[in-house]
């Protein structure tokens, strides 16, 4: 059952096309996990995150200056190459400038029926953020209604919240299992689980997670766990890289990625509030992307606490090349983790990863950790 996530991830385009054929609904491509999927689902829309392909491309150079991150260029390449030609619309919730360029260039050069820029506030630590976002959600909801022709009621919103919450809660249960001395799934399997949640019908995803939980109850990796690692940083669905690290005598037990915990860690809490306010509170208060983590650095203690709770002995800090927001957090995070006794390995990702070179560095890192265990 756990293999299903990988299958969904690898066949995401086919899946979305089939979903459209089956339901007659609209598919919305989104560029950042700050887009409130709850509202999209309430409108009967399938939200799918636009991801890159990790393949070299030569189509984005005229559109995005090469000093911006490879992920945003890889995402745009997918649009320019027609790989998302089934999308009915696109949307972005304001986050970093890099991915914003993928969105705006997509809007300019990839024919799309509907496009929506959602100004998600950056000052999430301000009490002014929720009222502002709520007003923006009202506009977003209205725009979705006009686009789909579906009136979105409070009941629809509650259904959207319940659907997404259930999936989040189940994934968190899976993550709890990773605290075990012998975790029942690898970091790679976990990544497939979370990323596939961004790509397929949430209800279906939750059912697969639910079934997987039964399977995982008695499962072990069937290999030595090795060093327990936390992986953190920019967007990361680089399966080749994760596979390589885990093949060198280690297991990723926890993460801080928007393709991991940052995406699903926090629930929408209704608490008698109107659904849009509850959703706004969730996105304002969620584990932040570095673009929004100021003036107080809340990510640092959160990451340290994840590393401790999941008993990680080392941290792999990944960063998409040129990713300014993460570059601005990494020195503080690295220093905090090292103060807690965790060794760190910093690596920069490009569209493709130099697996051979990285493997040498990873092996050296693991060797250091092994020696620390010895003495």
């Amino acid at each position, binding site marked *: 059952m756990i293999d299903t996530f990988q299958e969904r991830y690898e066949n995401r385009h086919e899946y979305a096309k089939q979903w459209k054929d089956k339901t007659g609904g609209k598919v919305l491509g989104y560029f950042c996990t700050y887009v409130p999927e709850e509202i999209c689902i309430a409108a009967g829309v399938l939200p799918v995150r636009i991801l890159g392909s990790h393949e070299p491309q030569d189509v984005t150079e005229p559109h995005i200056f090469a000093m911006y991150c490879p992920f945003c260029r890889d995402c745009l390449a997918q649009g320019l190459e027609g790989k998302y030609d089934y999308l009915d619309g696109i949307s972005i919730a*304001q986050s970093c400038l890099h991915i*914003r360029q993928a969105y705006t260039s997509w809007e300019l050069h990839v024919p799309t029926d509907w496009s929506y820029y959602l100004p998600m506030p950056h000052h999430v630590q301000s009490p002014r*953020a929720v009222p502002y976002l709520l007003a923006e959600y009202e506009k977003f909801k209205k725009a979705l209604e006009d686009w789909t022709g579906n009136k979105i009621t409070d009941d629809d919103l509650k259904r959207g919240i319940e659907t997404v919450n259930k999936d989040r809660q189940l994934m968190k249960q899976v993550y709890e299992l990773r605290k075990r001395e012998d975790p029942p799934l690898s970091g790679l399997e976990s990544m497939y689980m979370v990323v596939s949640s961004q790509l397929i019908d949430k209800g279906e995803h939750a059912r697969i997670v639910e079934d997987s939980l039964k399977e995982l109850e008695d499962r072990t990796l069937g290999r030595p766990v090795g060093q327990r690692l936390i992986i953190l940083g920019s967007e990361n669905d680089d399966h080749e890289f994760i596979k390589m690290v885990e093949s060198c005598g280690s297991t990723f037990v926890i993460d801080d990625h928007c393709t991991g915990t940052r995406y699903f860690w926090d629930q929408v809490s209704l608490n008698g509030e109107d659904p849009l306010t509850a959703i706004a509170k969730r996105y304002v208060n969620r584990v932040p992307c570095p673009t929004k983590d100021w*003036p107080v650095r809340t990510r640092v203690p959160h990451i340290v606490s994840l590393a401790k709770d999941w008993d990680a002995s080392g941290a792999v800090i990944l960063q998409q090349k040129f990713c300014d927001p993460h*570059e601005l957090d990494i*020195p503080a995070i690295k220093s905090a983790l090292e103060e807690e006794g965790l060794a760190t390995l910093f690596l920069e990702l490009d569209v493709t990863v130099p697996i051979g070179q990285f493997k040498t560095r990873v092996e050296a890192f693991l060797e250091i950790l092994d020696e620390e265990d010895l003495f």
Partner: protein
Amino acid sequence: MAKYKTAPLKSWERAKEIRADYYRNYAAAHEKGGLRWAGGAWTFDAIPAGLGDDVYPITSEPYGATIAFQKDFSDRCLQAAERAGYARDLCAYMRNYWGSILLNEYGWAEPGEERKPFPKPDFIWQDHICCSHAKWYQVVSDLEGGLPMFCVDVSVGPYEHTTEHGIDYIVGQMHDGIEWLEKTTGRKYDDEKLIQAVYNTCRSTSTWAEICALNQAIPAPLEEKTMYSLYVLGTLQKSSKDVADFYDELLAEVQDRVDNQIAAVENEQTRVMTDTQPPWAFLRVFRYLASRYGTVSVGSLYTFALIGNWIWDNGKFVPRPTPQSQGVEIKDRDQALRVLTEWELSKPEWQHFYHPKYKSDMMIQIAKDWKLDGVMLHYNRGCEGLSLGIAENRLAILESGFPVMVFEGNMGDEREFDEARTMARIDSFMESLGVPKLD
């Protein structure tokens, strides 16, 4: 014989004086019992003005550029930031600034004197429009061992889609910020000073736009290298009366140059504009354009509108009239903050953060109305904010029929600028435009 008469700017010495006083006053603030604060060139500097006349700012981007202009010092600053673990591809101003803290050397010194220790600010007052703005000062606070910091998020979408709730969001943060300023400094806030500072902000930024509009004249009364030294005053302290008054005086002088056909480039035969911050250590590129080709860079959206405020009016890109000239009388704090917010949200250089089409439209209009022959885009590795969407701008400008040359560099990290290659590109571009070399 020169085609046009030319003359140095009479206002030049006053501009230098204002800039020197600015850095001097910031450094010496504590000696007079005053306060020092740090924030970006775009921050709402009118707001701390309400704390008193002895509260002095240092704005980060011009300070980073000041360091960049001093190549050797900049090199040491950049290396210090890199040694501290900060990535080399981050904003170059930011790295220069951090390096100056790490080395504990102030980037401005009295002529002939040694650099003094970096004057630590008492608090941080910033705004957030690009990914780095708030984070810049988070790191400053880390490096200084903790500093009180307040930052206003302004990212509520493009001006043409301004909403009441967007303005409320920003104004609400400003009200919170004023309470925070009172608490942090222990000073009572003076709304009258705020109101005057808002008027000054509108006056200085509108007048600077009027000055730039005069550069539509042939010959151009100003060239961009000079404009850098003039617009910078607005980036230092747009809310100050001195800066607003200076721009009024400058406007009169530039108008006089237009009336008397006093050229910035005596053999003007070609007109171009650039884009984004220049590579500060290599401003001689502009001298090369003028002396070799009689090419005047009349400015850029950057020099016109980083602080200058403009607006679309019947299809024309024109200086935005100040609220006070439209009969607006500010009566209280809330109104002052609303006027300031609405004014700043229309800032042209904020629009492209939401979509390159806004910037392309403005640049194309400038190319038409300032009668340009071509456009030179600086693909600036030093600033992710202003290079945002620049490749799309290039395509749009080409589509509109204006030739475009691209050169890559970095405003604040000279290691990323290839001078010889840039000069060779300029030669090729001029040849493609059919511009003959001057004898």
